[in-house]
């Protein structure tokens, strides 16, 4: 394989990998405060993208994206208020079923609000045909947007969790929810915030990737499964792991396209998921003991 072609694959792998990493981080935020894997995480991306597309028809792009992020994070808060708070001492099985139900509901509502057409936001800078030459490989400026936004999100979360009171309270909930409650942290509100934050990040990611991957009412599911694979690979709850895992999965997927039929692309990452689950469920950076002690 010539160097330029390899580089091209690597860029495409890193791009999709960073998208998966953002989805995985969304999973992690909710998982850390509640112990729930939110199967509706992918729907936040879809919702963000779709809302921004609709709003963009009568307002400038940055404003539309901002509004979409706010609306989606409100939806996240609503989900917590209406559904998650009502679950009294739920089993993992119940949580799985409820969030799957939520993901189906959001998807079907989106289908009836919008339709089954594929839409997309315009490219943030340039157009479909603009490209930048980097050492012989051509990439769209939108790819740089995706990488940039992912980087900003990761940096923002790092600062948020380390230096703000809310962020630190959320981390306290993650490490021991009873102790956090005893210290006077309103754990219920932390759960709401984690849903809002996760939804907001999802929506932002959904907007940034919309020009490249297009947005459709059912585009969330496959993203969620990839995101989950990445979250598991990196170790559930571990954001650094999510970034590393995302890039690994992205690269593997990009390489797999060059040797296998495109139809099997999704099957590859899921096969990886199964292998990780069977061999090392704690993930690359997860602690083995922690995974064993948690209730599953």
């Amino acid at each position, binding site marked *: 394989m010539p160097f330029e072609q390899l580089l091209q694959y690597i860029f495409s792998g890193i791009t999709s990998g960073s998208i998966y990493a953002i989805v995985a981080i969304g999973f992690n935020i909710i998982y850390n405060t509640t112990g729930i894997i939110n199967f509706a995480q992918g729907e936040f991306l879809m919702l963000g993208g779709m809302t921004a597309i609709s709003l963009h028809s009568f307002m400038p792009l940055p404003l539309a994206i901002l509004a979409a992020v706010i609306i989606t994070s409100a939806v996240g808060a609503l989900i917590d208020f209406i559904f998650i708070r009502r679950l009294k001492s739920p089993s993992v099985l119940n949580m*799985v079923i409820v969030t799957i139900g939520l993901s189906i509901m959001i998807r079907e509502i989106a289908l009836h609000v919008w339709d089954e057409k594929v839409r997309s936001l315009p490219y943030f800078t340039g157009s479909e045909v603009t490209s930048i030459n980097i050492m012989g490989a051509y990439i769209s400026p939108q790819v740089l947007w995706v990488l940039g936004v992912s980087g900003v999100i990761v940096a923002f979360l790092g600062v948020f969790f380390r230096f703000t009171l809310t962020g630190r309270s959320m981390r306290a909930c993650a490490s021991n929810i009873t102790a956090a409650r005893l210290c006077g942290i309103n754990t219920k509100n932390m759960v709401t915030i984690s849903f809002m934050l996760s939804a907001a990040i999802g929506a932002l990611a959904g907007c940034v990737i919309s020009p490249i991957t297009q947005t459709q009412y059912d585009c969330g599911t496959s993203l969620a499964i990839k995101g989950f694979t990445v979250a598991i690979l990196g170790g559930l709850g571990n954001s650094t792991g999510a970034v590393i895992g995302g890039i690994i999965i992205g690269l593997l997927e990009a390489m797999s396209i060059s040797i296998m039929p495109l139809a099997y692309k999704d099957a590859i990452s899921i096969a990886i998921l199964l292998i990780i689950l*069977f061999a090392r469920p704690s993930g690359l950076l997860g602690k083995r003991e922690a995974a064993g002690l948690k209730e599953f």
Partner: protein
Amino acid sequence: MRPSVYIPVAVLTACIIAFQIIVSALNREFYLTQLTMSAYYSLVILGLTVLMGYAGQISLGHAAFFAMGGYTTAVLTTYNLAGAAGNPLVKLVVGLGLDTVSTNAYGAQTQHLSPWVSLVVAVCLTAAVAFLIGIPILKLKGHYLAMATLGFGIIVYRIVLGTRMFGEADGISDLPAFRLAGGLAVGGDPGLRVQNYYIAAFLLVAGVILLTNLIDSRPGRALRSIHGSEEAANAMGVNTARYKLSVFVLSAVFACIAGVFLTHFNGGIGPSEAEVMKSVSYVAIVAVGGMANLWGALVMGVVLNYLSLRGYFGSYDEFVFGCILIVIMLFMPEGLLIKENFRILADTAVRIVNKCRAGKQE
């Protein structure tokens, strides 16, 4: 079989016969078609109930086992043996008398593998796959188990959708009828409607009797102890891994048999049978039935599948199943068909009747 099982089985059989007589008398026999289909889907749900409700293991990939059954028989019985008469394997099959000749939709004679053989192959294949995949998968719990079974389901769906042999997005059609003994046949011919209804009903009743017996037996108690607490069950000497695996394989075989029969009944199968949404709707119905409640699962399985197949939910079909999942989990984790709900229903009925009477007296 405990005596207490006779009554529901008798009631169910009576309902099955009564429905057929009423529908035939009203000349509305086409209702039986969807009812037959929902009976087969309910067979999948029965198997899943034992796995989820009694053994406490979620599976979001049961549509894959259903599709395995359906696709295996579809591939095997649509293969034209006459076209490859020179092949030694084909010669062996014909020599052993494992082939059948049927007339296809265009009136032409086709020589193909007997559906009995494909049924056996499908069951063996599915059981083997369930066994192999079950060993690592059932070691997982909670979210991991859900995701792993979901992943398995998606892989099967992708394979079915992307492989030429399985007809890609078109699926496989023109399956021959499955001729059972004594002139009975599973097929889509309108003349076979009534007997197909009874064949499906028979399988369903047989399935529910089998599973009720299983649950009332020693393995059944072991399974329930696993659901209660796996560690405690282990400490009591229950081989939890083996029981979980056997139930997983059993429920996969139920799904596979349903897949084989429904595919012959429909005369074809498409990739939508392997979709994740199918698996999720099976889980939803098990939940509505009350998780550890075979009869609840059976009733809800037949009713909801029937409504869905007749198109009563319209374009909101998936939405309905999503809502069911959430509402049941949030408000009635015991399912819809529990005594308390019946009591409330009976109380309201009595109250309404009393009100009517009081109204008349005034």
